[in-house]
């Protein structure tokens, strides 16, 4: 595609013991919130005196933000009630290690910045971020890809709920250290983007100091084409979606460029937004979704979209029509649930084509024209239609931040400019002296680690799987508790199997250790481990010994096994069929062999 440019930003949570700027543990817990704060956020000028357009846009929405507080993982620092502590040096070390592995040039002095964030995901209204290294490179199947920047930043607060004018966030996640790796814009296509994401992910895991689990890594994508604009797609969590997201975004921009050309061909010369027409009488007969608000004082307003007939219904990429793009602007700016337009199926809303004709007539629409309508209180409906109108007639691909949704994306807000950053004055700059840097070891290469695992007794296939697993640092730890083969089996087979059954198999490392210790002490058999893991995950507060008793998983060994064997006539098959989970096959075999005359 002409002028195709794409880059990738990878965000990965670091597995440090503390958060980046306070002493809370860097872990998203299972706790229930024990309180809530309510705050407003305002638009502010940046260092060079500009108000950032993204910040101004969010502030104009006049939103209220609620923040859930957690007893062990949020303190006054996250609540913007206490200045930050010094930068977490453990986190900086990990970023330096990754920077070195990427061959990036580490800066002489790291300055922490405040990046304006007006969507409420940071209580202070800024995210703390620092540029640590620049100009690295990564080898790929299609040549080297440049690594433009490596940053260390704070994780945002997790969204819980978003409604009209209100958002609720949880503060346990806010402030966990995050590494951000940004490539340059030379990615060739979607498949290449996926390869880079995989490679960087592998490198990050190879440090053994990154968090695992849902949401701990995510990709943001930057895509543009000739005649299009830079668009950032945020929050791709699934690696398999990366390729499609990139390719579909390029296609979306291409479709928009084509659509704009056809509007111009229809003789469009510019239009002013005129006062909408009241069509409440038409929507009074629609589904309750519309008719109910009308009874409660809302109005249905419509405006004519001259020259856009048939275009609002045009599909830009699968499952995304131009009308949805236009509607998303109205939604984002005013909080309306959406707009109705003339290219839609009236029956979707409990209306008829005659109803749609009535609206067209009221607006004096010709065959080349379209219209859009909205049901909302009048002071919301007019700006909503204005936002939709302005977007529809922009006739250029807007610079946007979009949210990944499956393999497509939806509009979030305008793309922020550089004015969104100014110095974090509460944290002094950190010099990264040459000596400090040279002491930081490079992470072991995949081959080196694979050789280590083979030495431990894993076969090459298992060793290969383990080096690519997020769980390898856990594996290294658990090998101190039990034999490596069993540990590898638990992490590479049992865990995914349980996950397929819908069990969320994430638990603290210490809990894994307890499970394996139980096995190593001979209290349970190897075969019982899947059940023990499941119990440990689903009952995080319960003592494992209680679970083993409750589930009747205690290993039958020694004298009791002899009694049991005698009771079942020393029939190996029979015994194992009935007591598979509690009898160790090899022990039984030895026992039976000794009983044989």
């Amino acid at each position, binding site marked *: 595609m002409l002028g195709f440019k794409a880059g990738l930003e990878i965000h990965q949570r670091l597995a440090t013991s503390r958060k980046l700027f306070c002493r809370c543990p860097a872990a998203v817990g299972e706790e229930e919130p024990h309180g809530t*704060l309510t705050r407003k956020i305002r638009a502010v000028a940046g260092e060079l005196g500009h108000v950032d357009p993204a910040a101004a846009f969010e502030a104009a929405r006049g939103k209220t933000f609620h923040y859930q507080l957690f007893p062990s993982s949020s303190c006054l620092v996250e609540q913007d009630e206490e200045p930050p502590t010094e930068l977490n040096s453990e986190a900086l070390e990990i970023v330096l290690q990754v920077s070195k592995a990427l061959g990036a040039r580490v800066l002489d002095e790291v300055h922490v910045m405040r*990046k304006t964030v007006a969507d409420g995901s940071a209580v*202070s209204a800024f995210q703390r971020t620092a540029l640590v290294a620049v100009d690295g490179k990564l080898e790929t199947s299609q040549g080297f890809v440049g690594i433009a920047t490596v940053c260390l930043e704070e994780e945002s607060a997790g969204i819980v709920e978003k409604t009209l004018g209100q958002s609720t966030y949880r503060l346990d996640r806010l402030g966990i250290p995050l590494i951000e790796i940004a490539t340059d814009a030379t990615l060739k296509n979607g498949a290449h983007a996926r390869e880079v994401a995989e490679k960087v992910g592998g490198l990050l895991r190879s440090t053994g100091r990154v968090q695992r689990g849902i949401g701990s890594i995510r990709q943001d994508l930057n895509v543009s084409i000739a005649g299009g604009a830079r668009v950032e797609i945020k929050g791709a969590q699934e690696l398999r979606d990366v390729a499609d997201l990139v390719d579909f975004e390029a296609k979306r921009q291409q479709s928009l460029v084509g659509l704009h050309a056809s509007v111009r061909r229809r003789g469009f010369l510019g239009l002013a937004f005129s006062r909408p027409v009241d069509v409440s009488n038409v929507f009074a007969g629609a589904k309750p979704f519309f008719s109910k608000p009308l009874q409660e004082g809302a109005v249905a307003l419509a405006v004519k979209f001259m020259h856009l007939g048939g275009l609002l219904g045009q599909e830009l990429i699968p499952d995304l029509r131009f009308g949805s793009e236009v509607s998303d602007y109205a939604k984002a700016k005013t909080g309306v649930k959406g707009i109705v337009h003339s290219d839609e199926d009236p029956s979707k809303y409990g209306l008829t084509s005659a109803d749609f004709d009535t609206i067209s007539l009221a607006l004096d629409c010709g065959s080349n024209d379209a219209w859009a309508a909205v049901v909302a209180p009048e002071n919301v409906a007019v700006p909503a239609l204005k936002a939709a109108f302005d977007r529809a007639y922009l006739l250029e691909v807007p610079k946007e931040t979009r949210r990944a949704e499956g393999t497509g994306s939806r509009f979030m807000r305008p793309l922020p400019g550089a004015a969104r950053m100014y110095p974090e004055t509460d944290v002094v700059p950190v010099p990264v002296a040459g000596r400090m840097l040279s002491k930081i070891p490079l992470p072991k290469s995949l081959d080196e680690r694979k050789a280590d695992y083979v030495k431990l007794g894993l076969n090459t296939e298992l060793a290969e799987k383990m080096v690519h697993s997020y769980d390898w640092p856990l594996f290294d730890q658990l090998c101190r508790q039990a034999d490596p083969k069993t540990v590898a089996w638990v992490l590479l087979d049992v865990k995914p199997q349980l996950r397929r059954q819908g069990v969320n198999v994430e638990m603290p490392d210490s809990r894994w250790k307890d499970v394996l210790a139980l096995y190593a002490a001979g209290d349970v058999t190897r075969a019982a481990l899947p059940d023990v893991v499941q119990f440990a995950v689903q009952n995080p507060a319960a003592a494992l010994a209680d679970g083993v008793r409750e589930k009747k998983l205690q290993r039958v060994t020694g004298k009791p096994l002899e009694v049991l064997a005698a009771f079942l006539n020393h029939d190996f098959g029979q015994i194992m069929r009935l007591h598979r989970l509690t009898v160790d096959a090899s022990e039984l075999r030895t026992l039976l062999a000794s009983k044989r005359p």
Partner: protein
Amino acid sequence: MPYSRDVEEGLKKIKAQPGDRVRVKSKKQVFEGVLLPKPELGASASNLILKLDNGYNVGVSAKGARLEKREGSVALEKFAEWVPDARSELPKLSLVATGGTISTRVDYQTGGVYMLGEPKELLAKVPELSDVANIHRIESPFRKATEDMDHSDWQRLAQEVVKELNSDSQGVMVTMGTDILHYSAAALSFMIQDQNKPVVFTAAQRSPDRGSFDGAMNLLCAAQFAKSDCAEVSIVMHGTSSDDYCLANVGTKTRKMHTSRRDAFRTVNAQPWAKAWPDKPPHFLRRDYKKRSDGVAKADVRFESKVAHVKPWPGASGELIDFFVKKKYHGIVVEAWALGHVPATAKHSWIPSIQNAVEKGVTVCFTSQSLYGRVHPFVYANLRKASFAGALYLEDLLPETAFVKLGCVLGRTKNPARIRELMLANLAHEYNDRLQQADFLG
């Protein structure tokens, strides 16, 4: 702190100033960005601070590097100016701005927060104020951090505020830093006589450069309260950690009870005047305030600066008192333990020193480190000793308020009987005769 000499010379050679676009080229790297002034703290003197095009600031070693000035300088420190909306139908208020976090902005010289913002810049950040009141006059008699203030600043402030009280304004807002805000409010409570309109102190715990600036709601609530009929001195600050409402605290009974929280200012041993809202009139929690009147306010700014505020520690000796007596101090506020204890029977007893001070004509007053509750001269034998030695027990008065009040009283009279009478009189709601359950940790 400037850049190192080498760096300064290099910059001079290419005639580069902060704001200019500069390229730094060394053997291993090239960086280009807008040159920023060197922050005072933390950054190395041989590192140039550049703002890169991606918005990040970085420190780049200039040692042995080639510097080059490039096209594309930018003007630093450009801030929006406040243009007051002519909303003549709204009540007129005066704003007296004195500095503090509420009027700060990012400062590149120190890498810290700059205290001396133009008051107009501050109002530009809270445009909604123009819907609440017509801030028709902004005065700024001085601008400094509160930690640098002393009694002479209170004197100027009182005179300025009284001038505004006697103008066509319906109330006066005072913005200030937070460190000694409660001392200042107490000082004005005693210095302003025949107060006719509200005097509302407000401030910020978060600076206006951030979107979570708490001063915006504080200013709006303060403006709402300044329109009310409460002709008292109050401190309007966040009531909770949320942006929901402010409390209008009593000028003489407020203390900063937290170093950094938004809701740090609490009324101690009493109830605040009211809950103040950003978008509606205040909800009063008590009714014993002086009502707005047509009278003329006056300022009595006399103040005796030779007043000390001392606090015993376990093992501290009465020499502390002797020191101030020797230094010719006229008054000493002792922030004693609990009901009013100081060492009284030990070798290091304070009693002889207090007795000596009183005999020399020094007024010695007792308040409590407990802050909450009342001091009492008679509960224990040791308390009686201090009382019999001539110390004044100031009931539930906050130590800081006692200090300010003693300065004001000693400024007006040196007559011991009159001093005693004034110190024990309830001049500006500084005493609460009836402490109740709700007056503790509110």
